[in-house]
Every structure is written in structure tokens, then in C-alpha cells.
């Protein structure tokens, strides 16, 4: 693995969504790791911090927003960039995402163009 290899932690309780995101990101050279809920994601970050996180909102055990709050509280603001990827699409959710330190917000359903476009917007591509 080269030093420039980027990692992305895909956090979603849907196996299908994780698989789709993995396929898209791997075409761009990302090493993708997966977590099924916020708690698993937090453990994964403690073990090895990814370069980016693609994060669902509604998940069992620990939801996406609680994970984001815990991540920023434990590791500080800004890094790694977190992009929500959720069926929630009201402005209030986007505002909460911004307030709690997310870098972007993808509303499901998404496709390759939208996903990679958002990664590009936050400087990951």
C-alpha cells in the first residue's frame, strides 16, 4: 500500500448501501472499511483513523449524529472529513450536521456522480 492511499470508513446499517459505496470509492483508489452502526465506527476510528467517513444517520445502537458528536469530542474538530449519506432530507438535519462538524451532506438515493462530486467538493478527490 502506498502512503498516498486514502481510506474511507463507510458507516451504514444497510449491507447494500455499504457495498454500493465501496464499489464506487474503490474505483477511485480508496481502501474502504465498513461499520454497521456508530459504535462500531467509533471503535474502528480508535483502532485506525480513516481519511474520511461516509455516515448514515439512522442506525441501531448509535446513530450517525451521536457518532459524529463523539468523534469530534474525542479527536477534535475538522478531521477526518465526515459526509452524511442519509434518507433524511429536511433542512433541519443538514443544519444539525453542519453544527456538529460534518463537511457535506448527501441525500439518498445517491449515485456515483453525486458521491464522487461531494468527495471532490471536500478535497478528497
Amino acid at each position, binding site marked *: 500500500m502506498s502512503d498516498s492511499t486514502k481510506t474511507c470508513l463507510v458507516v451504514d446499517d444497510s449491507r447494500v448501501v455499504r457495498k454500493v459505496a465501496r464499489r464506487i470509492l474503490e474505483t477511485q483508489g480508496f481502501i474502504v472499511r465498513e461499520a454497521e452502526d456508530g459504535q462500531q465506527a467509533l471503535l474502528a476510528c480508535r483502532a485506525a483513523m480513516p481519511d474520511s467517513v461516509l455516515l448514515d444517520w439512522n442506525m441501531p445502537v448509535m446513530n450517525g449524529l451521536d457518532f459524529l458528536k463523539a468523534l469530534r469530542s474525542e479527536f477534535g474538530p475538522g478531521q477526518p472529513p465526515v459526509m452524511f449519506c442519509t434518507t433524511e432530507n429536511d*433542512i433541519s438535519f*443538514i443544519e444539525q450536521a453542519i453544527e456538529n462538524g460534518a463537511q457535506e451532506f448527501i441525500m439518498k438515493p445517491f449515485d456515483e456522480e453525486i458521491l464522487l462530486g461531494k468527495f471532490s*467538493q471536500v478535497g478528497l478527490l
Partner: protein
Amino acid sequence: MTPRSFTSIAALLMAGSGLSIGPDKTYLLENRLAPVMRKHHLDSLDALAAKLRPVSFGSMPGGLEQDVIEAMTTNESFFFRDDKPFTHFRTRALPQLLADRPAHAKLRIWSAAASTGQEAYSLAMILQESAAMLAGRSVEIIGTDISREALGRAREGLYTQFEVQRGLPMQSLVKYFRKEGSQWRIADSLRQMVQFRSLNLLADLRSVGQCDAVFCRNVLIYFDQPTKSRVLAAIARQMPSDGVLYLGGAETVLGITDAFTAQAHERGVYERVILPPAQAALCPPSFAGAAARG
């Protein structure tokens, strides 16, 4: 479709929109004109071609002819498309244009192939966020397009969830849009900054007036060389000597016109060049084409 029918449709597209298509694009005609055939109760492209009336160069014909032109034009657009031209406008062109003009002078920006409005509204967002730099100066954004249907959507300012996710940062979505059902409505404050008009780039462009910056991106690629040259010359006449032109990443002025020169290290950014009369006489537009061919 008979060769005669193809020639007839291709001639309409060239005269009406500058769109240059070859016989290899027959499949595109079949795909895109199917809804037009249904609308006008025509059962084949031959029947459609037989109904077409000749249009004069650069006109806005209406009826079947306009429907054919609209169906064949590409209305692909998204917010802050390619990002770099907008960053250049915000950080380089805008401060320079403001510095070079008296405080009372109105700034006019033209989105020349505005389509469904995303480019013009992206510029409106930049200008609204540059309020301190503008210091109360009056700004006008003109969005023009040949497609009346696209302009209708632009004026409406109502976008799908897919459209607001293409290029638009989430902060801008929250700041400038409100949800209406499953769609997103752009803020009135931005709509009021933009004036959308129906305009054929092949027509007389003087009605647009003088514009300090012109965004004419991803439209020249559909034109043949003489049409590109003609359109660029006409746009140049609507710009002051320090005007800035933005073209698409796959477009250039090189070998097409001497009215613009590429800005160093800035892809797609061109400066207006006004040659002294004596030099201009020695270097007519045809020279540029000859040089390119050579």
C-alpha cells in the same frame, strides 16, 4: 429516414441554433425527436422533416421548428460547475473589475447559455456573498438561452434533490433554498438578481448590452468553426476592453478569433483584446482561421 429528411432537419438545426450534426448522429435525432413527433402527431422523422418550414439564421421560430431545436439542444447544467471558473471570478476577476470602475458604475454579468439557471444563480450567490466588496454597487446578471422550456425552469427556480446535490455545498443549500415537497426552491433574493431572457446566440446580441464578464461555457463545442468565430466576435462586441470571458474546459478561442486572449495559467479564462485600428485591419477574423488551418 431518407437523406433528404436528414438534410432538412440538419439545416434547420444549423440555421436555428448553430448546432452542427453529421449523419452519424441519426440515432440522436430518433431518440430526442420522438416526443416532438408524438406532440405533433407525426409518425416518422420523414413526416416531421416534410412539415418543417425554413427558418432564417439566428431566428427564434416557434412551433414545430422551435420544438425540434429545443429537443436537440443540451440543457445539462449544475451549480458551480467545474468550480474553478467561479473561484477565478470571485477571487480574481470580480475584485479587478470593481477596482477598475467608478463606484457608481453598474456591473453586468452574462450567463450566455443559462439553461435551467444554475450558472446564473451560482454567480448570484457569489455576488451576494461579496456584498462587502461590492459596497452597495448595482449588479445585474443576465441569463440567456435558446430553450424557452429551460428558461421557464430557470425563472421558476425549483430544483430536484438530484440537481441541488450537484456542485452545491450543503451550506449554500441551507442558506439559499427552502424545501417545497420533494423539491427545492431558490431564495427570492437570488431570483431578483437574475434576469432571464430568450436569446439565440446566432442572432444580433446587442440587446444584451455591455457585459463586464461573460460565461459562455460548454456551448461552443456544439458549433462548427465558422459559427464559433461568429458567436465569439459578437460576444466580444458586447464587452469592454477589460472584460473577462469564461469558456468550457474543452473550448478555446485559439485559431477561432483574435478578439480574446487566454489568461496565463487559467484554463478557460480569456481576456478581451482590442487591437488598435491599424493592427486590426492587418489581422481580419479570417486570418485566425487560416492560421489555424495552416
